[in-house]
């Protein structure tokens, strides 16, 4: 239940502005890949092109290919909705639906698409997803309560449960811990470690220790200056990137000399 992603010669634009230039990368299934780099270097923008969330922004477009197990996401006739149901996403700030209960939030992907499901199946899916997000024990007695009543860390895990409830192939995480305290961060990192047994996980992070802790492979993005496009500088095993990078800029960044 996980697929590989190959990106070929990808350019990402906001209207005429080239935001990310010429990215080639292969993301392995059942592994955690981390994107690191200074602010504004295009890592989040690039991440959003992997499930066609980029084009939600008016004027945004993409050139190049993103292959999910060989199928181009940007091929003619590909429905972005199909793409997004296979590649889930967790955002920087926890965003449970405020009008829905915890249970309905987990079932949102099913219910909003009006897929029919018996109560037994739904209950099983809720429990499976919440257990998968390490949240079941904390919320099992208050599934009917609104999701916005949970703490920030719990809300973020609720969003992860919501994402895995639609059973995607890949989970994208855009700085999932940047709004959380260290304990909630630890809970999410443990969860990421478990998720990689079933899913392809891609995570954007500003926290280099986090990238070192959770990821198998790391990609370093950088930007030559304001107004210039972001580029993929170096991609390799996390261990190599952090201990023996081949590019000077990567070494400077991971050792904290800039950015």
């Amino acid at each position, binding site marked *: 239940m996980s697929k590989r992603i190959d990106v070929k010669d990808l350019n990402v634009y906001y209207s005429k502005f080239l935001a990310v230039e010429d990215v080639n990368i292969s993301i392995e299934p059942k592994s955690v890949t981390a994107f690191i780099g200074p602010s504004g270097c295009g890592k989040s923008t690039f991440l959003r092109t992997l*499930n066609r*969330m980029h084009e*939600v922004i*008016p004027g945004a477009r993409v050139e190049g290919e993103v292959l999910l197990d060989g199928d181009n996401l940007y091929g003619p006739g590909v429905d972005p*909705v*199909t793409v*997004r*149901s*296979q590649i*889930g*996403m967790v*955002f920087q*700030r926890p*965003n449970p*639906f*405020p*009008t829905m209960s915890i249970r309905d939030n987990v079932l*949102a*992907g099913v*219910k*909003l*698409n*009006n897929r029919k499901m018996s109560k037994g199946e739904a209950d099983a899916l809720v429990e499976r997803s919440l257990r998968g997000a390490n949240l079941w024990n904390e919320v099992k007695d208050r599934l009917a*309560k*609104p999701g*916005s*009543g949970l703490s920030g860390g719990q809300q973020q895990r609720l*969003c992860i449960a*919501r*994402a895995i409830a*639609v059973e995607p192939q890949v989970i994208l995480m855009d700085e999932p811990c940047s709004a959380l305290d260290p304990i909630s961060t630890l809970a999410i990192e443990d969860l990421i470690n478990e998720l990689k047994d079933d899913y392809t996980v891609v995570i954007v992070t500003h926290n280099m220790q986090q990238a070192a802790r959770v990821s198998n492979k790391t990609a370093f993005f950088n930007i030559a200056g304001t107004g210039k496009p972001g580029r993929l500088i170096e991609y390799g095993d996390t261990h190599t990137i952090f201990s023996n990078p081949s590019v000077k800029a990567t070494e400077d960044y991971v050792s904290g000399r800039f950015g």
Partner: protein
Amino acid sequence: MTDTLTPVKKRSALTKGQLPKWAPYLVLGIALVLGAAVLALIGFNALGWGIVSAVFFAVGLVGWSAAVEGSRRAKDKLATCLVVGAFLIALLPLFSVIWTVLVNGLPGLTDPGFLSTSMNGVTGAYDNKSVEQGAPVVGGIFHALIGTVLITVLATVISVPVGLLTAVYLVEYGDDRPLARAITFFVDVMTGIPSIVAGLFAAAFFFAIVGPGTKTGAVAAVALSVLMIPVVVRSSEEMLKIVPNELREAAYALGVRKWRTILKVVIPTAISGIASGITLAIARVIGETAPILVTAGFATSINYNVFSGWMASLPTFIYTQILNPTSPSNPDPSSQRAWGAALVLIILVMLLNLGARLIARMFAPKTGR
């Protein structure tokens, strides 16, 4: 124990001179007495007494404060006086209106049969009899109440889908396109249309497509819709705009289609604001007189059919009762009925406003702590 702990009352080095707590009350008392004295010289009246006393109070308190507390505190007191004064001036007409309508309207409202009978068959003879022989005032507003409710409901049924869908287009699909900008412009223009023009438009429109002299409740409902739609569009648009984009993206990321996202996530999140906006739009048009007069005419009998025949409504009822009393020689019963109808209208608007608050609270996203 050292004596530093004993509660010796010593002035703190951090405070300056302060007016005692009772200072405002003392100044108010003096101002009232002085005001009464001044007014006694030129002829007493309550309104003048209030104004003169207020001026004395402000001058006295600010002057005293300036002498004891310094200029900054005095300016603070002056600003407080101005703010409270403005507040009282704003409240004065409101209370005055409610009081007048209550006093004049209660006799009509408490009249038996006022809410349950129409003016059908009520002639000047009955009014003359009630004035000359003390018989009870007959006739009521049931037909007008029915008309107001039916016309307003129909206007709401027309305006809400049009207005809400326009707002959805502007916020979710408009993207600042020329069409969206044109719609926004015309909605702004529509907001400023005088109500009589809306009435004439609806009348002319139905004259053209149905036939000359078409006056029914439905025509009035169309006229009111012209007034309501821009209000509904504006309020719904504002409410949809404040739904965080993150929620839309969260739904998209789950593989939910755009129209389902709007229907199941965006609108439910904004529904409390939308619903209260709609209720306020209804409250805004329910008291319109001119457009109803030219589109539905005025009737004295009960008419449940909005698609045929003239129809009464509360505002037109008030208007005709005052302008053309049922008995020209004894207009008092008519004006009593008009005031009663006015009271009912105000109560309706108040209930709608209360309803808007209830709806907003009922639909508001729950925090659930």
